[in-house]
């Protein structure tokens, strides 16, 4: 009984009116809390939450759209690259074809030119040969005439001089020497 009493008294004396307790409820504070909170809610709703949340969703949409755009652009770029690749391959083929064609043409031209020049060369050789032949014949005929003249002259000289055997031989040898020169 004693213990209960002292305990109760201890508790009640600590929680006296003067000391104040954390559990005391002040009606004024309640009123001011309601006023403050409701005012804060209304003010913030108008000046902060609406614009901020709108900006946030705006930005989210913006990011989403940007990502979509980027995705689209990338796909397009990929398509373009593929197209370019096909174009490149085609162009290469074309170029190869042109090169082949020109090579073929050059080959043909070469052989043609070669043939032509061969023919020309043959003709030239033939011309040269006939010319040589002609000149040869001319020279030969001239020589023949000269030899004939010389023979006639030497015959004349022989006939003009009195000739003995030795002299005849010497003469013939001498003329032969002359002829050689």
């Amino acid at each position, binding site marked *: 009984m004693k213990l209960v*009493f002292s305990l109760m*008294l201890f508790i009640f004396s600590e929680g006296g009116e003067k000391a104040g307790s*954390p559990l*005391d409820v002040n009606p004024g504070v309640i009123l001011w809390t309601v006023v403050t909170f409701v*005012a*804060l809610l209304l003010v913030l709703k108008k*000046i902060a*939450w609406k614009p901020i949340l709108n900006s*946030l969703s705006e930005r989210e949409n913006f990011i989403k759209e940007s990502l979509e755009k980027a995705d689209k652009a990338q796909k397009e770029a990929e398509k373009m690259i593929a197209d370019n690749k096909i174009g490149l391959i085609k162009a290469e083929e074309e170029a190869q074809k042109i090169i082949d064609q020109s090579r073929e043409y050059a080959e043909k031209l070469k052989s043609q030119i070669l043939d032509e020049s061969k023919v020309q060369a043959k003709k030239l050789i033939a011309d040269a040969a006939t010319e040589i032949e002609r000149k040869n014949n001319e020279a030969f005929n001239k020589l023949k005439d000269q030899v004939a003249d010389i023979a006639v002259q030497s015959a004349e000289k022989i006939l003009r001089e009195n000739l003995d055997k030795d002299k005849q031989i010497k003469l013939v040898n001498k003329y032969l020497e002359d002829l050689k020169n």
Partner: protein
Amino acid sequence: MWQTETKIVADTLKKVAEAKGSQDTGWIMHHVLDSRQLDLTPFGVVNLPQIHLFGIDISITKHVVFMWIAFILLVVTLRYVAKSYRKSLVPKGITNLTEVLIVFVRDEIVKPTIGKGSERFIPYLLTVFFFILTCNFLGLIPYGSTATSNIAVTATLATISFVVIQIGGMMKNGAVGYFKGLIPHGIPAWLLPIMFIVEILGLFTKPFALAIRLFANMTAGHVVILALLGLIFILHTYFVVPVSISFALFIFLLEILVALIQAYIFTMLSSLFIGMAVHQEH
């Protein structure tokens, strides 16, 4: 018999009075409790105006002043944040910090707990979150005072939550449909009266728990810090100073965490209860 008992009472009272005289714990309460003056020692004491209206004492108290400081801080900061979005959609500095919190409340608390139709409650829950967070932090700065360690404040906030929960539920399901939906399906008819009472009680216990949780958490941390520092003066020795300071510092850091967690929990549970009231089929 009776006489001896009264004597015991008188003795106890005397002892209590003596104990009070020598080692008063009032200074702890002085820091935790609400008061009618702002204690700015050594710069002086500001007496707050006392107002009486219709016989009710509606004086401005320390906690009211700190609620107003929170109000001003929030309005100024969030106005700045809202304006900064007009310049550029890319957040920077304080905008970034605030945006993290706003997006956290919107995407991690409100959307998962309420789901469809959550947009209507986002402003309220954001305000609750930021208000409680700011009040909690204001108690951690020098000369500050925690408005959320006043049970009148937390009870009022919880009551507002209660009202929002009920009105949210009734707007979605209709007043009659809402109370019908409180009772789970498939209950035997004779259980209905009991279930109805239980569910109605449940409605009130939820905000009650909200109020007590916030109040107790915000009060307890301060009391522990003050008690640890008070060891120095109770034991009259300097040897206890390092222990007291380091422990108090640890509790203070814990308080920072608690300030965040309590704001989160209050918002989270309010949101959860709103979600339960709005979507009763679960």
